[in-house]
């Protein structure tokens, strides 16, 4: 979402995450190699952020500061880029990312009811993660599987022709 507003304790609150996930030695090593790979390369900021997020699952303040230093850009610029694009996350997310498609075809075929039913099942609002880190709920503008509307995706799997009452069976599969 292009206009995410800063919220205390919310998605864009840098102060919130103190889990120390990013201190894992092996991940730090991989991250170090990544920084080297992109050092001095043109147009590297976004791919570097994307691959760093692959390693850690999200982008902590510390990770972003290291990336800024390595790329020679101000931290404010990195933060600006990260908060512009919907795919970057400032807090850890669940093991299973549920994306409910909000595209036109899905909307016309009852996508809103599917979203409501998933919200009720998981107790989550959009962009929230469950306490046990099992699920994160997101919406996406269009997955591109319009022939199967309404569609949701969980991780890399797409589930189409979904009826609200079937959502519970789909979610159960994912631990």
């Amino acid at each position: 979402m292009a206009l995410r507003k800063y919220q205390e304790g919310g998605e864009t609150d840098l102060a919130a995450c103190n889990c120390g996930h990013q201190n894992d030695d092996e991940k730090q090593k991989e991250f170090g190699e990544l920084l080297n790979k992109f050092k001095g390369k043109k147009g590297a900021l976004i791919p570097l952020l994307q691959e760093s997020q692959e390693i850690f699952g999200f982008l902590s303040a510390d990770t972003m500061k290291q990336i800024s230093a390595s790329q020679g850009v101000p931290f404010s610029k990195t933060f600006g880029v990260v908060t512009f694009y919907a795919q970057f996350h400032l807090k850890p997310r669940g093991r299973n990312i549920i994306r409910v498609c909000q595209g036109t075809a899905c909307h016309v075929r009852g996508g809103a009811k599917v979203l409501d039913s998933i919200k009720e099942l998981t107790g989550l609002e959009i962009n929230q993660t469950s306490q046990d880190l099992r699920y994160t709920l997101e919406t996406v503008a269009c997955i591109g599987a319009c022939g199967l509307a309404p569609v949701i995706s969980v991780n890399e799997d797409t589930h189409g022709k979904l009826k609200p009452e079937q959502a519970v069976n789909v979610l159960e599969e994912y631990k």
Partner: protein
Amino acid sequence: MNNLMEKCCDKCQHSPQTPCQDYVTCRTQGPICHDDENCKQQRLDHLSLLKLEKGNKEILLCAGTGCTSSGSVKLADLLDQELKKRGLDEKIKVKTTGCHGFCEQGPIVIFEPEKVFYRQVTIDDIEEIVQVHIVEGGIVERLLYVDPTTGQAAKTYPEIPFYAGQNRLVLHNCGHIDPENTEEYIAQNGYQALAKTIFNLTPQETVDEVKKSGLRGRGGAGFPTGVKWQGALNAKITDKRYVICNADEGDPGAFMDRSVLEGDPHAVLEGMAICGFATGSDEGYIYVRAEYPLAIRRLKIAIAQAEQYGLLGDNILNSGFNFHIKIKAGAGAFVCGEGTALMTSIEGNRGMPKFKVGRSTDKGLWEKPTTLNNVETFANVPPILLKGGDWYASIGTDNSKGTKIFSVTGKVNNTGLVEVPMGTTLREILFDIGGGVPDGRPFKAVQAGGPSGGCLPEDQLDLHVDYDSLGKVGAMMGSGGLVVMDDTTCMVDIARYFLKFTQNESCGKCTPCREGTMRMLEILTKICEGDGEPDDIEKLERLSRVIINTSLCGLGQSAPNPVLSTLQYFRHEYEAHIFDKRCPAGACTNLLVFFIDEEKCTGCGACAKACPAGAITGEKKKPHTIDTEKCIKCGSCIQKCKFGSIFKK
């Protein structure tokens, strides 16, 4: 020989470092550098096998995103196992392909060369298919497609109206070749256009051919492609130039670019390389949206294979022409489909559009001449160079040449991808090919062009679709998305839906878009919730004019279009919402009144028990009533009623 891309014998010296000019021609007509009956026969034999001329067969399963989510890959694995068990895997090959286009009927299983078409195949059907079709040589009747209007079953796919009505020019390989195997693209004349161009034409002649074809950009704006390429060729800066493929297909409801990328990635690579040659560029980027992981994977494989065979890279086919392609994944921003935003995103910045001073073909990516075109536009280029611009211009209308891929979705029977010549009517696309509206419901409107486009009602169905005709009636070709709506869709709600989308995706840079779309969204939401005021329509129209005239980029300039077009054709719905507090389509819950038909109600009380607001009262066995003040319109009562006596209007 196991693969067309291999050498026939040690006389062949081709490699990316020592490229041979005749490499592409040699794949299908070789050997060229020496005479040898053995070598020639090997190649012919292998080609025959690929074309299924040796009594061998293929079973094709769609492995596009849609069918994969319905389990098609598991089906393919199971089929493979069954064939191996019966020792039939030598004569019959199981192949996964790209999208065949008939998404509603997936998973699809096709037998070639007979062209038998089975639909909605499940794991439980596999054994019967192997036994009845393969072993006994029969047909599994119950898996054939049946036309809903005639009741006729179609044995082969050319008989099915969905396919019969199409001209699959760009999509000709999708659903037929294995996109992860370059030799199949080569066997279908792949890379011959590139070879022909770099050896027989000059860059100017290449541009002239594209101009002759009349090809217009398929991303939405419809700018003449040849003119764009000429601009880049004429650019003053010559030390570095770029080609960019815009694969940030963000329009909700559009998935034609995704299908081309997943099903025939080499067509795009070849088109980009030809563009590189014509415009003097040696580097290309494909900007793919992050939401298309399968497309990204297939592109990476195709690029790696093309480089492996020397079809991309330095000194391609010993011509002196260099062209490298890299992939840039988007990060989730619709606005990055806009040209300047896309380029600044590649440069590593926030994807905010810039005020255009001059053309990007003069100064684009990193201030160098850049040619930016859409996926479908590039996929049209190889056929144009292979068969000629004149041939291409013979298809379509006076101002719009060639074919267009439409994604037909929503309240329609045959959802999927439809490719037809420009000039085909909406009626033919949506009814003859699309199969009309399900459940016999009346057609209400079709949204053409995504969030930048407009809604067209029934009396526009005989419109001959092309860039100019759509513009004249307040709609837009856009990416080619067609979302069909029936009488249960509220047009005010649809306008609100599109505004919500564009408002969300607005980059925030310019005031008219950032603030204007927010104000419009607020007004539309108010109307849908029953709080519309008499001057709301006038406010919407005025806001629309200001936003269109003053926004910085295409997103803002087209955001009000859905509102204006629904006002043009469905003004009465807005008026009903505002003045009568009524939703004619019965969709806006706040405006609905739930009531119990006293003649049908048996007084069983099931609804009263289900009602979370305690709004239903009545004595046992006597008709009940709903207190509309307390009613929260959740619909639980309708769900519980076994006598169909509760209605909403």
